């Protein structure tokens, strides 16, 4: 800690001779620190720290709010020393001076805005009319409960100290670093799932273990937390390096890759078969919700991921499914109440969804992609208004919705929301069907037509693809898959109200597809698990109830972050990665394929390399079908 005052001076002196190798980059440290400072002040001002402060994750001293608070300087300290990758890629090793001094500077900078915040909070200024979340309790959190000048010092100590930890992390071997991060992640997640762990361990007859690890209705005890952290870090350290990177998978194509993703899918499916029996009803409930969103996301994946048509109103098909099921099965359906069984109504609903897909798609089928986006959004808005309207109240119940929807009869029993485990099995069944259909379609003739359509619509048409038909097929297939979600939803909840089908649902589905990886089935499934499982949908709670107020903020941030930093998603599809990293890929091809070039009859390797480099990249003008105007 003694070093905290020195970095600025030593950095100034050391920057004068300016060694060629990455020295202390004061400007970067200050810039990164400033961003961190704004970020910390921002999460404080929107009330995140306080909301999450009520959630103790490590008994007795760390709340979720603290974790977020501490994470900011930690990450900032880490980033302050990072050397931006050069044009040739690869990160050079960082010197200890650069890492630690940079981190210290960044730490000091991070503390700046929060310090101002504390001063304001302590003053007589009443800011709460403007910033309702700036409450006195916030100052308590930021100062770690210290009064007076000690408070500022505490803030500074936390920021600089954790920034230094972050800087130190930068000095460790990359494999170690990843393992540590993984360890922190796992322990954090474990700490947040006390109730789930209680049920799960209880079902396994390990209630005593739960008592040792957790405090009931709170978080993880600190000692087990440390032990688990060390354990998981060690395990991930050992396991690290075994996974193929996305880059490698990018080059791997065709059957081999398909086989791998299929194996992964099958293993997951097998796990899902056993899981519902072991975990408690909360996890089952959670996964039913996840499954519903998986279905919707798989549907949207066909439209957006495979065919490249941006559909911003995907909730339409969910709504058609749910309302269709409600009208057809509920005895309380106000207008037309045939009271069909669930299975009998299902094909009717799927057909209705297909019709809806055609209806939504047709008007804009010949227009550019962005018109499609706005029109699908418009249709979703229209449908939402129609369901809530007094005009159609005689059929859809208006604001009062449709209630008393019976469950799904399976054999002699009826499955509904009161039995999340059975519901989960049913949902898994439908998700598997949807996955199978998606997978089959992707590799088929129509799947190739979609891919061509996505790449270049005009050319696809010139090569004999009926683009109108292909587009409508995408809409129909996507709509049908998503209508399963609606049908299950109606049976699960037992009542449908218009507010379950708001526009935000469409956006959340889109985020799932994008975060997971457009056009990639496992990616989409993972996206749903991560986002819906943890954060929840617009009207559905996830694992972390506390996130409710910040859900859409996080979704928006994720969308921007993914688009800017990792547009191919968490689990990217090969095609998508190629598309978004063409330049890097070309570089790789240039380096990797030298051996191939020499035995190429074309010319010498060098010549071909020049030809390839001089050939203009063809993504810009062709990837989206039409030239930017």
């Amino acid at each position, binding site marked *: 800690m003694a070093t905290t005052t020195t970095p600025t001076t030593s950095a100034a002196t050391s920057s004068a001779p300016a060694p060629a190798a990455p020295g202390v980059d004061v400007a970067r440290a200050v810039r990164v620190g400033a961003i961190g400072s704004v970020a910390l002040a921002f999460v404080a001002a929107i009330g995140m720290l306080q909301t999450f402060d009520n959630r103790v994750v490590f008994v007795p001293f760390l709340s979720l709010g603290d974790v977020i608070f501490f994470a900011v300087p930690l990450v900032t300290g880490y980033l302050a020393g990072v050397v931006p990758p050069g044009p040739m890629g690869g990160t050079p090793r960082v010197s200890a001076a650069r890492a630690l001094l940079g981190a210290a500077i960044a730490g000091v900078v991070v503390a700046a805005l929060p310090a101002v915040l504390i001063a304001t909070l302590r003053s007589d200024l009443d800011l709460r009319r403007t910033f309702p979340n700036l409450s006195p309790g916030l100052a308590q959190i930021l100062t770690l409960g210290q009064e007076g000048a000690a408070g500022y010092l505490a803030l500074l100590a936390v920021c600089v100290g954790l920034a230094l930890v972050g800087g130190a992390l930068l000095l460790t071997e990359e494999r170690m670093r990843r393992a540590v991060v993984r360890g922190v992640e796992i322990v954090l997640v474990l700490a947040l799932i006390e109730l789930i762990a209680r049920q799960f361990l209880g079902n396994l007859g390990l209630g005593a273990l739960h008592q040792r690890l957790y405090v009931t209705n709170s978080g993880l005890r600190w000692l087990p937390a440390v032990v688990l952290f060390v354990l998981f870090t060690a395990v991930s350290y050992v396991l690290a390096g075994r996974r193929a990177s996305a880059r490698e998978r990018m080059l791997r194509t065709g059957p081999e890759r398909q086989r791998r993703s299929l194996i992964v899918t099958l293993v997951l499916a097998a796990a899902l078969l056993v899981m519902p029996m072991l975990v408690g009803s909360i996890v089952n409930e959670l996964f039913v919700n996840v499954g519903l969103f998986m279905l919707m996301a798989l549907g949207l994946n066909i439209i957006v991921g495979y065919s490249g048509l941006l559909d911003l109103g995907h909730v339409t098909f969910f709504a058609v499914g749910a309302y269709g099921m409600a009208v057809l099965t509920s005895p309380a359906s106000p207008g037309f109440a045939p009271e069909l069984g669930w299975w009998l109504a299902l094909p009717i609903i799927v057909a209705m969804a297909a019709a809806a897909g055609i209806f939504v798609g047709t008007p804009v089928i010949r227009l550019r992609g962005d018109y499609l986006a706005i029109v699908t959004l418009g249709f979703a808005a229209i449908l939402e208004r129609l369901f*809530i309207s007094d005009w159609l109240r005689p059929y859809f119940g208006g604001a009062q919705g449709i209630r008393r929807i019976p469950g799904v009869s399976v054999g002699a029993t009826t499955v509904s929301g009161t039995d999340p485990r059975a519901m989960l099995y049913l949902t898994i069944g439908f998700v598997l069907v949807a996955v199978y259909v998606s997978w089959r379609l992707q590799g088929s003739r129509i799947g190739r037509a979609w891919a061509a359509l996505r790449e270049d619509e005009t050319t696809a048409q010139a090569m004999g693809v009926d683009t109108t038909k292909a587009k409508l097929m995408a809409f129909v297939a996507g709509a049908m898959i998503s209508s399963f979600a609606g049908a299950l939803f109606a049976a699960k909840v*037992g009542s449908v109200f218009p*507010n379950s089908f708001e526009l935000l649902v469409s956006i959340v589905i889109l985020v799932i597809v994008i975060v997971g990886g457009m056009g990639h089935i496992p990616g989409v499934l993972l996206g749903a698990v991560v986002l819906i499982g943890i954060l929840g949908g617009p009207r559905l709670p996830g694992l972390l109830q506390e996130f409710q107020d910040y859900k859409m903020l996080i979704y928006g941030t994720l969308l921007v972050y993914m688009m800017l930093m990792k547009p191919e998603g968490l689990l990217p599809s090969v095609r998508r990665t190629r598309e978004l990293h063409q330049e890097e890929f070309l570089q790789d091809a240039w380096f990797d394929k030298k051996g191939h070039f020499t035995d190429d009859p074309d010319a010498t390797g060098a010549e071909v390399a020049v030809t390839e480099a001089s050939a203009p990249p063809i993504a810009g003008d062709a990837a989206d079908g039409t030239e930017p105007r």
Partner: protein
Amino acid sequence: MRMLRKGVRTAAIVAAASLVLTACGNGDTADLTDDTEADADATGDEETDDPGDDPDEDAAEAGDLGSVTYQEGEAIQIRSLEAISGDVAFLGIPNQRGTEIAIADYGDVQGFAVELGTPLDDLCSADGGQSAAQTIVSDDTVAGVIGTSCSGAGVPASELISSAGMVMVSASNTNPALTQTPFGTEGENFSEGYYRTAHNDLYQGAAVAEFVYEELGLTQMAAIHDGDPYTDGLTTAFQDAFTELGGEVVVYTAVNKGDTDMVPVLTEVAGENPEGIFVPIFPPEVNRVAEQYVNVEGLEDVVMISADGAQVEGFLEIAEAEGFYFSGPSLQFEGNNNEITDKSATDFLEDYQEQYGEAPSAAFWAHAYDATTLLLQAIDNVAEVGDDGSLTIDRAALRDELYSTSFQGLIGQITCDEFGDCGAGEIQIILHEDSSVTDATQIPVVYTFVPSE
């Protein structure tokens, strides 16, 4: 290669088939061997179901809904399920806080502390209510629930909580279907173990109709709702009651949440020349209506009546709100005292201000306070301390006890009828004449409606 693909396909089919079989089979075995936990609860005694699930419980002598036992030193678990985020948080947050204050005031139950746990969010939606309720029922240490805020969430939540043998008391669900509609008939979404201190919408609709028809002598009315199940239910109840009295609702229409330009809807209303408009919607839409109706030709002199949703500072403070009538549950709590905790409404508001730094943002805090005392009192009455110092609450007895518990609460006499309507059902109409008065309880009452059974 080809072999493998074929193999994979076979595996997929086998997996799918086994899945279906397991799914079906599971349903059967669950019923036969009774190895499920919360879902078999309606009939089975849950304690024996999950061995080792919670070491602090043992299979006590149970009624037909089972029971919950707390060891010495443990806390009685109740849960709060309110709309605490999003656009309805203004309603749910005071409810939750009312519950918190009530628990603090009530103190220990037979020497056992009461714990609320992490507040749950009903998200003001059916799906949200169901998922949150699922979280509650999966924890069988929970004795009872206070919630939900929104009737839409209450429908699936009450069903789940009821089938888990638990009880729930809502402070602000007013939808008739949850208890009785019409009076004396079980509502379409009635569940055993569901109670509420909030009034039934039917009362309020009838109250407004009576006031308008008999006190003001108007026969031509307009009604505007905003697509919310609450406002929609209210305008429907009003329309029915008003028509029955002999009046006519000449235009029944709606706006959408988020609308700002009310001129079209007001023109539609003006075209039918009503004498008054019943517009029980929330701010900010009601603000826009108030600001814009005077400029619409033909509406300059109509009588405006809103409801409890608009009795908040954000609306009462604007000049255009002057002259509005408001219907709502009786809010003249000032002199009232909760006889169990011996807390007056005035003290409550002081406490609230002190603890949370603001005044309640909606009017149902008192209902929540009374709902909580009702639940705690009933628990207190049925809980039995065993020889080992543990406390056992019989779930069936708790339900019965709730029907018979009766006391004077902040909102008036609390007595539950056979459908779970426990509130007084007294509706007041107030006339807002001075926009500097933004506390609804300070606005003069011009009409009181007491439901006659």
